[in-house]
């Protein structure tokens, strides 16, 4: 096939700056919220760290900053790329569904596992925010106080924690997948890696590059900026 004969080291752009901003805002907020939340939650840490009112302030205002930052990205960022990403996550073709049963069917830019992870993360973000606001306001106003809010917030934390550990393993340690980190830091991934892990997307992107290169040669006489 044509793509296989392409030279090594070609860079395919996988994530836009807006997508990366969403990811890193989420990652940074999650880390601060997890650390401050655990210090509020685990007695051993609570005693070690003390300063509960300060930690509570950090926890609450990090959450506020996290939501504001996400809103800001949507307002000021590349909304088209976000809509495109959401559409990709929404649509599951037969290969995606097969991939969940047994790996190996060719995948698009996001594989089925990544789509699933994005769905769970988005849903949990909303549920964390709702329960968090209720806990925050419930302290002052009994109308916002429900017996199980804190339980739900805790269970979201437990599930997210294990998802987070798995995510870190795949992006930092597992040898065949950790190249993906490059896509989230610098925006591009190596074509050979992409052909192996996201073949349908890699082929389509490579074809696009090629047709663009061909168009550029046709217009070689024109000055470039």
């Amino acid at each position, binding site marked *: 096939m044509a793509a296989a004969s392409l030279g090594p080291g070609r860079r395919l752009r996988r994530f836009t700056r807006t997508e990366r901003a969403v990811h890193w805002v989420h990652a940074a907020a999650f880390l601060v919220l997890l650390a401050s939340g655990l210090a509020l939650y685990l007695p051993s840490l609570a005693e070690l760290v003390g300063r509960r009112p300060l930690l509570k302030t950090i926890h609450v205002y990090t959450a506020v900053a996290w939501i504001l930052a996400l809103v800001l990205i949507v307002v000021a960022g590349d909304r088209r790329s976000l809509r495109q990403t959401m559409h990709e996550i929404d649509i599951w073709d037969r290969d995606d569904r097969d991939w969940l049963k047994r790996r190996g069917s060719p995948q698009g830019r996001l594989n089925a596992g990544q*789509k699933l992870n*994005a769905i769970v993360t988005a849903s949990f973000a909303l549920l964390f925010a709702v329960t968090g606001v209720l806990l925050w306001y419930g302290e002052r106003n009994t109308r916002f106080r429900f017996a199980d809010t*804190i*339980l739900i917030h805790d269970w979201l934390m437990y599930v997210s924690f294990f998802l987070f550990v798995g995510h870190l393993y795949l992006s930092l340690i597992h040898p065949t997948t950790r190249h993906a980190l490059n896509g989230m830091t610098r925006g591009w991934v190596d074509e050979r890696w992409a052909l192996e892990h996201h073949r349908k997307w890699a082929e389509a992107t490579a074809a696009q590059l090629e047709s663009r290169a061909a168009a550029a040669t046709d217009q070689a006489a024109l000055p470039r900026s």
Partner: protein
Amino acid sequence: MSDPDPRPIGRRAFLLLTAGGLSSFAWGGWASRVLAPVTSQFSQLAADVLPVGGWRIYTISGSMPVFDPKVWRLEIGGLVRRPRSFTYADLLALPRVEQVSTFHCVTGWTVQNVHWAGVRFRDLLELVEPLASAHAIRFVSLEQPYTDSLTLEQARLHDVLLAYELDGQPLSRPHGAPARVVIPEMYGYKGVKWLTSMELVGVQPQGYWEGLGYDQDAWVGRSNGRS
């Protein structure tokens, strides 16, 4: 090439998951009670690594008070015939009772089978002889500005203790060393930790959390937004 058969699944999955999460306000408490035998074993397992055991430690100030047996005193004064000051040793020498009760926090968590040891307020009150005009006790914590109160009638219930032991150990610092109020029928915010003084008063004052909208009578299941 086979038909890729694309289906819009992602949005639905997101909405379903979110709806499931939000509806857990209706079933989460039930599920957690059903799963309690499993999860409590898990938390017991975790308790060996991280001292969890179901407790959460809530404080309102920068750091927890430190108990020094040489300087700590429990002062009991106000509307009493015989104001007293107890050292830690005095406290331990008073008639000791043990009880197992359940601890309920107003934020929704519960610890079952808590073994307390301490002194009944009934017995303590007999020593100071409240005046007829005394109606309530104001409890003052070393953790400022935490205070709360009980009526004398509430404090005289049979299982209301000034506890100095938890699960066979002297009360630890996070649990309010050396002594805290325990009233199992009420939410934990009534159980003042790091207790340093008790003042008998004619009119029940508002405590720290009551000032933030919590009920004066914190009966478990009958107040604070629960029916």
